[in-house]
Structure formats: C-alpha cells, structure tokens
C-alpha cells in the first residue's frame, strides 16, 4: 500500500497534514469562483443550500488535489516548490492520500447531487475526473500542452455554481468557463519561466523545458490576445454591465502590456533582474482573474440593489 518504511514515516500525521492534501490555496480560488457563479445566476437559492453546495464543490476540488498528490508524489519530491507537501515530506503516506481523495470525491459528488441537482453533481464528478485522470495521470507528463487542456478542470467551478442555481448551463456559464480556461496558459507559463529549473529536474514537459523560453514567451502573448475578448463579451450578457466592462478593459490593457513586455524580453534580460517582469506578470494574472469575478459580483449586487442599466445592450 505504501512505499515507505516505518522509520521513514516520522510521526502520526496531524489533522492539518490531511487538510494540506486538499490544496487549501487552490480550494480558496475554487470556493470564490463557484460562489460567484452561484450568486450572479438568476433565481434565488436558499442560503443553506448555497453554502453547503459551495462546500461540497470545494471538497470535490480538494479531493482531486489529494489524488494529484498521491499520483505526483515522485515529481513533488524533486521540485523545490512542492517538496514540503505532506506526501513527499513523509508526513502522510501516498496510499492514505489516495484513499482520502477517492472517498472525499464520492462524498462530495453524492452530497452535491442530493443538495443541489444531478447536473451540478455530474459536472463536479467530471471536473474531478478531468483533473485527477486526464490532467495528472495523462497530460501532465506527456505533452507541453498539459496546462492548456488541463486548465479546463480549474474553469469548471463557476459553471457548477451556475448549475446549482439554475439547474442548467447557459452562455454566461460558458463564458465564465472560457475566461478561466484561456487565462490558465499565460498564468502557468509565466510561472514556468521562473520555475524552469524545477520542471526540468522533475522531467515535467512544461513548454519552456521542451520548446524553450522563446517559444513560451510567444505563446504567452498569443494566449493573452485570445483571452482579451472573453471578458468584454461577458460584459454584454445578463450578468455583465458597465462596471464589469470598465474593469475588464482596464485589466486586459494591463495584461496585454505585461505579455508584450515578456515577449520583448529574452533570457539574458530575465536572468539579469531575476525574472522580475515574469514574477510581476504572474502576480498580475492572479489579480486579473480575481478582479474580473469581483466585478461580476459587484454587478450582481447593483442589480440586487435595484440599479439596472436600462439600455445596456445584450448580444445574447
């Protein structure tokens, strides 16, 4: 069941070690985007149902994190960024991570199905499957396009939140999905540029490892250009409005400028200032997503307060 001997396992794991298996930081992003997807959707959801649904979505995301830590323990042991995770650090056995991940997946999906509806539960099950099997087991070690396709798993939560509230999926949910999906590649490639050594050591075929940093910089710019129209498109739907449009245009201007700067740089320049621009672009990417969803929430709050933009044009 486990590949470590009693002498390697230092002590009994603490509760916090099991919690760390659920990737709390990823989970907080999932909670936030799922909550936004749920709250901006038309129709009222009882607070108890809303709260517990978001919790079950978060548990499902956490479960796929635990499964990822079980599968990737060998890589995590090599990479500096992940060495202190519970499994590579020897605090929890890989087998325990697997069992926890599998059971939490089942509990989360069944409970979401009972609490909300079967569509939401089905989407959650697919998300877990996509992250644990398609991304972790298959794509991550096989292709430099790993995060492009794998990004879908991170993009599902707002769609699941929307499905909890409406029982369906509509253009708004698809555009929220598209926003995260298109955002993921520039976000992770910026990280990969300054974490290149880690990925090389672990043999993960990230784009800078297989195709070089020049190609990666080109790709970041291309994907940022493809991402740019998604936010403004979302602005002209039921859940958008002028506040969201203004935020989206400002964020896209900043993000495009950042991507352009990365495109113009080379490794010599990047090493000289220890990847300052890449790190800045990575931090900006976090703000980009966060503020977009915050602006959606602001529009929902304005609608709720009775302020609606009478003549606001909708393309859908």
């Amino acid at each position, binding site marked *: 069941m486990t590949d470590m001997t009693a002498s390697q396992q230092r002590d*009994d*794991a*603490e509760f916090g070690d099991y919690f760390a298996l659920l990737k709390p930081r990823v989970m907080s992003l999932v909670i936030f985007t799922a909550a936004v997807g749920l709250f901006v959707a038309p129709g009222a959801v009882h607070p108890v*149902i809303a709260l517990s649904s978001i919790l079950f979505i978060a548990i499902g995301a956490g479960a796929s994190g635990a499964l990822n830590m079980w599968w990737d323990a060998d890589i995590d042991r090599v990479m500096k960024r992940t060495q202190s995770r519970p499994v590579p650090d020897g605090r929890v056995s890989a087998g325990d991570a697997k069992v926890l991940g599998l059971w939490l997946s089942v509990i989360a999906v069944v409970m979401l199905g009972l609490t909300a509806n079967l569509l939401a539960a089905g989407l959650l099950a697919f998300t877990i499957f996509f992250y644990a099997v398609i991304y972790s087991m298959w794509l991550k070690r096989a292709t430099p396009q790993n995060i492009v396709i794998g990004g879908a798993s991170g993009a599902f939560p707002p769609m699941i939140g929307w499905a909890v509230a409406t029982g369906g999926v509509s253009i708004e949910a698809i555009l929220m999905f598209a926003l995260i999906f298109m955002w993921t590649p520039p976000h992770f490639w910026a990280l990969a540029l300054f974490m290149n050594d880690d990925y090389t050591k672990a043999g993960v075929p990230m784009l800078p490892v297989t195709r070089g940093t020049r190609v990666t910089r080109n790709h970041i710019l291309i994907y940022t250009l493809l991402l740019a129209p998604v936010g403004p498109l979302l602005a002209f739907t039921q859940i958008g409005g002028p506040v969201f449009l203004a935020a989206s245009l400002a964020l896209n201007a900043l993000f495009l400028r950042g991507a352009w700067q990365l495109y113009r740089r080379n490794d010599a320049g990047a090493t000289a200032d220890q990847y300052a621009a890449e790190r800045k672009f990575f931090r900006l990417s976090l703000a980009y997503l966060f503020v977009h969803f915050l602006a959606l929430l602001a529009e929902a709050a304005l609608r709720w307060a009775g302020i609606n933009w009478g003549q606001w044009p909708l393309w859908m």
Partner: protein
Amino acid sequence: MAITREHELHARRRKRNAMLGLVLLGFVVMVFAITLVKLDNGGTVEGFDHAVRPGLVEPSE
C-alpha cells in the same frame, strides 16, 4: 494491561480524533439543516418503495 505512560504521540492522536469528531459533527448538522430546508420547500419526501403509493401517482388529465 492498560497503557499507563502518556506519550507525545497519544496527545497528538487525541487532538486529531477530536478534530475529526468536530468535522463529522459539522457534517451531521449540515445534513440536518439541508433536510429542514428541503422539507420546508416541499421537496419530494416520498420515493418509490416497491409498493403502490397512491400519493405518488400523477393525476391524469
């Protein structure tokens, strides 16, 4: 023979068990709250039970 000496490990396990207990208690409370809300909103209370349940038959026409 009972274990008489308290090891640091025992304290650690006790803490872990207490936390798990709290999580399970929280889960029970949550399921109870969901049940109350579902009943309040008139969710389906009766399900198929291997016998004819007149209350479940949809009125025709």
